[in-house]
């Protein structure tokens, strides 16, 4: 018996919580998902020691890929510090014995809910998304048999009609998050409820992107360097959210901002949703309005 096997035998639970049979099944689903970019592979989702809203699909994907040499980062709405992010990080520290980090550049696996880090991802990194509703057509067509047929035939006219109705009604496409994309020119895919601001980051990313939906029992993937194109129209091209002001803390202008209420007299500020990006910029000497508006000396 090797040292690892001895350690395994002594461990009171399975490595990374899931039993080996479940991991094998999820691993096979992940390989199919990579081979068919954007296609939702059904898998037999397991109960996890946390409620569904906490990202059990993402947790099962991470548990099936993670190994002792990984460095894990977990973000929830861009933050490393929410209860959800901290719990998942601790879960894998304990069950998989992995190192954890908040630095995007130091992570080999990043599990995320609702955001893609601002720092561009690199080759070899894996981004695992927690997905509540994987089917982009579900709100247009509730029947699974019908949506499956639409994917089989790549018949996505219904989605175009819906978006065009938006334009007719609102003068623009109303969706600001969960904005549908075409993957590899073949499958319509739901990018999970990330803001549409993040959609361009998915396009030809050098990182591998894996999506896990626990309740809906689906896994899908975008391999590195794969086309991910947001749906749009010639006369209404896709545009990302724009913010009027820079981050009040670090002065960043090209990032996704969250509104923070400062007091009960209507005082508010906009700050980076990506806490690691904001902290790194401040450590580098960038100061936003609230901190005196400074830029680092060259």
């Amino acid at each position: 018996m090797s040292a690892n096997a001895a350690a395994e035998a002594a461990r009171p639970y399975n490595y990374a919580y899931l039993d080996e049979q479940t991991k094998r099944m999820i691993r096979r689903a992940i390989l199919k998902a990579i081979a068919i970019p954007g296609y939702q592979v059904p898998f037999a989702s397991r109960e996890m020691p946390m409620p569904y809203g906490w990202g059990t699909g993402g947790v099962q994907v991470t548990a099936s890929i993670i190994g002792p040499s990984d460095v894990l980062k977990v973000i929830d709405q861009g933050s490393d510090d929410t209860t959800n992010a901290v719990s998942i990080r601790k879960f894998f520290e304990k069950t998989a014995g992995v190192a954890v980090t908040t630095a995007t550049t130091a992570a080999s696996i990043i599990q995320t809910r609702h955001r893609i880090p601002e720092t561009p991802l690199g080759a070899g990194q894996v981004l695992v998304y927690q997905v509540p509703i994987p089917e982009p057509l579900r709100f247009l067509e509730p029947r699974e048999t019908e949506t499956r047929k639409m994917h089989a035939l790549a018949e996505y006219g219904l989605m175009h009609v819906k978006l065009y109705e938006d334009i007719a009604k609102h003068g623009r496409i109303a969706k600001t998050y969960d904005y549908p994309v075409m993957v590899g020119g073949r499958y319509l895919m739901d990018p999970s409820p990330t803001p549409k601001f993040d959609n361009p980051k998915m396009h030809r990313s050098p990182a591998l992107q894996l999506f896990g939906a626990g309740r809906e029992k689906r896994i899908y993937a975008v391999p590195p360097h794969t086309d991910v194109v947001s749906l749009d129209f010639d006369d209404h091209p896709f545009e990302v959210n724009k913010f009027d002001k820079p981050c009040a803390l670090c002065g960043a202008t090209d990032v996704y901002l969250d509104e923070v209420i400062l007091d009960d007299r209507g005082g508010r500020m906009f700050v980076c949703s990506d806490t690691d990006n904001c902290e790194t910029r401040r450590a580098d000497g960038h100061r936003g309005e609230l901190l005196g508006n400074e830029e680092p000396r060259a």
Partner: protein
Amino acid sequence: MPVEALFAISPRPGLADPVMQSQTVFRTVMAALAEPGTIHALPETLTGTIDAPAPITPAAAAILLALADYETPIFLDEAARNADVGAFLSFHCGSRITDSAGEASFALIADPTSLDRLDAFAPGTLDYPDRSTTLIVQVAELGDVSGEGSVRLRLTGPGIADTARIGFGPVNAGLVAALADNRARFPQGVDLIVTDGAGILGLPRSTRIEEEGF
């Protein structure tokens, strides 16, 4: 049954540390399928401990031991179809060995010079393209090839930044055309994991393949 008889039929050792080594093998295969055209190596410490019956190479055995189980029937090509191989895979994976390529989750191809077509394997359906066969193809050379029955390919598609060039073989002269036909069926089709015993090359159905001259 006397104990000695049990020892006589007990197959050779598989993965020394199934939990951790399966994870290592899976991540290597995952990286290979995510980046077609790039060779990903299994650690020698891992392949070195596997004593698989001929003609399975340690790398091909490691892939099956990590990914196959009672839910995944395995098809063996003629070169691999022997009692020792069957016993080894049944014992370590719990997989059923099937004579039907069309119902196999995995297919072990020990002699790719006989692999002239891919359409006998399960391509999945348009509704469920994931219900397909993954072929594990053992080749003598991978990467730089001499040309003796080997092919040089130019690859484009998901996982490849621009173009990737890779060679392997020797393989059947009809395989490149069969791979092109396989791509034409996308999203149906089979996926290939090509290995020379140490390195792993992923050729998912999404990859566009053209042959290059020597």
